[in-house]
């Protein structure tokens, strides 16, 4: 299963999102909005932003 994984400043990691699509394509392009209210990310196939 492909996940977005977060990390704390202390280096502790955690699952933040899991791609449930059966194709299980990779996450791409994660980045935060300017006000940090949103995390943008893509699932490469079938292609979701």
């Amino acid at each position, binding site marked *: 299963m492909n996940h977005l994984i977060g990390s*704390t400043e*202390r280096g*502790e990691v*955690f699952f933040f999102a899991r*791609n449930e699509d059966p194709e299980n394509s990779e996450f791409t392009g994660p980045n935060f909005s300017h006000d940090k209210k949103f995390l*943008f990310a893509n699932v490469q196939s*079938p*292609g*979701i*932003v």
Partner: protein
Amino acid sequence: MNFFELRDGRPARRPRPAGAARLIHIPVTTLTARRATLRGPANNWEGLDGHITGDNHGDGNGTDKPAGYGPLVPDPAGLLSLPAGFSYTIIARSGVTTLETGEPTPSDPDGTASFVRKGGSGDVLVNNHEVSGTEPFRVPHVAGFVYDETTFGGTTTIEVDNKGNRVREYVSLAGTSTNCAGGKTPWDTWLTCEETEEITGKRHGYVFEVDPYDQEANRDPKPIKALGRYAHESVVVDPRRGTVYLTEDATAPNGLLYRWTPPGSAQPLRHGSLRALADDAGTLEALTAFSGDTATA
């Protein structure tokens, strides 16, 4: 660590220092040191259930509080599971949502950066499309924004409002190939990387710059040849020195880490600097790294 200079802008003839079996060999001591900085659960990936549990060693109270936002809640829609309290919005969907020019959103969204929307309400995303030829939805060739008439990668620019909802999407670069990752510049543009060395209608394997605000600046796309021609993966600009670091996704031989130093005449780098560069401007070098017992060049 040393960088060696690439005189021809392309590492086709990579210098191999005498005695080095491989050009790139990260010292084991370096890897060990890096691993040591990943404290807590980084080496404990077994038995994960919903989230990676982490022990907050050293938090002073002796409790084992997991890092993060709690277990992921299965998504009834079967797309994206998130911790409780989080939700998602679909901004674009390949083949489903529609560009301003009427075509469907292209396939294979990849590297992306966002920029504050003019007026401060919302964001502008520049979204790579890693289309190399077989994907069902190509980046349409919008007149004036096409590098090569025979390839169908590129970027779309997506505006979202302050709720994160889609407002518009349009082609900002077309006719490139296999746009993989890239990097956001300190002057608020996107560098998009062609992860290929194919030669079709034109040569590919370049970095292109995309302006998220000024579509006219994207007209007549021009590769930044000074950054070299190879299977570019990603790029980052040092905001203080203007040095550009670039990675290559390649095997046999393995890809390299590159450093490009702008010429004095182009410093400090700013909006428009890269497009104005001569093809051989600045200095492009590749990192060499060796195990501790191998002499460096």
